[in-house]
């Protein structure tokens, strides 16, 4: 059963008022503009036992994504494709309200948002992740670890996922003349990422006294605690909408949709620029074989 959250950490009234006051003046308590994300820091390749890994700080929110690529069996309805399996764990390290145990509904929802953002737009060419057609394919396990929670886990997870995918290495598979399959010892192949995709999350904050509504990009934890609704929209680098999710206890007025869509598109572009910057730098500094 899904239940109205009852264990939300409470924000002091004075802090809440400060946030609202800043918003009423057109800026934010951490001096960001409404449409600016927090600072982004990136590391990759930090987990030797993973095929790919990334560590992303979005402000003080910290996410670690690890990818394992292992031989598996195709699903009956997609015999010619590899499998993508996305899981999310809220580490108990990350927040006083996270408890160890099986993923709760928020973690399940987050995993499914990331999964959907990638799947139908075919961000990964799963048809290239086949070892023996119909029999053996690659399972791509993406495990997302929220390590420190300071708001907007979705976008931090999405960025980390994309970076882990872009930097992952998997074994080369080749076929001998006699048709035998050889999986190379060495990991040298990239995962075939055809399109970069990121989610971009906009929060709605309503000032109960004035009735004013504010839409802000990449909410921090204290902004999330005041926000009544989040809208997450996923975009591919060629501008398509590849997913959408409204969450939270309130609703969105139909007339506000275009504003949210524009804000989230711009936010996604910033995230994508950051990803591209990191990958370009990494590629240029890594000697090619």
């Amino acid at each position, binding site marked *: *059963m*899904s*239940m109205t959250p009852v264990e939300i950490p409470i924000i002091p009234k004075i802090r809440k008022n400060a946030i609202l006051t800043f918003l009423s003046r057109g800026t934010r308590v951490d001096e960001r503009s409404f449409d600016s994300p927090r600072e982004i820091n990136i590391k990759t390749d930090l987990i030797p036992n993973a095929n790919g890994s990334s560590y992303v700080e979005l402000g003080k929110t910290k996410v670690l994504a690890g990818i394992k690529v292992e031989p598996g069996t195709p699903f009956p309805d997609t015999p010619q494709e590899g499998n993508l399996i996305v899981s999310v764990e809220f580490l108990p390290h990350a927040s006083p309200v996270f408890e160890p145990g099986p993923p709760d509904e928020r973690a399940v929802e987050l995993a499914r948002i990331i999964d*959907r953002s990638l799947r139908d737009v075919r961000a990964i060419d799963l048809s290239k992740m086949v070892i023996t057609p119909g029999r053996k394919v690659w399972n791509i396990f993406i495990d997302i670890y929220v390590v420190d929670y300071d708001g907007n886990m979705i976008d931090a997870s999405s960025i980390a996922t994309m970076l882990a995918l872009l930097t992952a290495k998997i074994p080369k598979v080749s076929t001998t003349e006699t048709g035998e399959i050889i999986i190379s010892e060495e990991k040298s192949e990239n995962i075939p990422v055809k399109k970069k995709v990121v989610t971009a999350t906009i929060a709605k904050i309503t000032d109960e006294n004035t009735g004013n509504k504010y839409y802000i990009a990449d909410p921090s934890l204290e902004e999330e605690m005041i926000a009544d609704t989040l*809208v997450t929209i996923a975009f591919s680098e060629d501008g*398509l*909408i590849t*997913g959408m999710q409204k969450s939270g206890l309130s609703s969105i007025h*139909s007339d506000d949709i275009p504003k949210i869509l524009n804000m989230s598109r711009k936010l996604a572009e910033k995230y994508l620029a950051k990803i591209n910057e990191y990958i370009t730098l990494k590629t240029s500094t890594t000697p090619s074989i």
Partner: protein
Amino acid sequence: MGILKPGIKLFTDEGLRIDGRRPDQLRPIKIEVGVLKNADGSAYVEYGNTKILAAVYGPRDPGARHILLPNRATLRCRYHMAPFSTHERKSPAPSRREIELSKVIREALEPAVIVEAFPRTVIDIFIEVLNADGGTRTAGVTAASLALADAGIPMRDLVAGVAVGKVQGILVLDENEQEDMYGEADLPVAAMPTLREITLLQLNGVLTEEEFYKALELAWQGINQIYKLQKEALKKRYAGAEEEE
């Protein structure tokens, strides 16, 4: 979704859909309110072959005190599919999809319920998919909002939901399972129609911005029609003209 099979034809030469509908046409919709004896509120909804039974218990005092909130009612919501509701028998254990949809549906109903009226209570919402043929979450929201009303729980507005699909390039209202499976996108939407507030919005699949706005407009058309049927069903129930099923 997205499994393109070249041989499958989802439109006739006249542009009608596999079940004979125009692209902007809803399936036959059946709504009954107050179908159960024990529940405080209940509703049965069909969108074509999608069949939903919703029940509401509450506001009530649950066993567990720690889930009560001092300033509002706690909503609990379960979306569940019967093992016999799907093409292949579904395990009764809740899937990840059911866990997510229970949350999405609860959050589609939260904005409508005047939860401040019942502090320190719980309102339980149970949605059972008896037969699944696409659009189960939106039909579930439609049914649950009627069950809430039937339970006498005050609401800002009813919530009505419907999905819009993109199928072989064409936007279609209230797609069925086959259209969903072979389509390119599914946009489920639920809203409080009078307030024009959207309470559920998801997109599974790929749309251009232009397509998205057209699809949303189409969803509104459907929602408004369903809203009218919801109100008729409530009227019928409370006019006392009909005994419970």
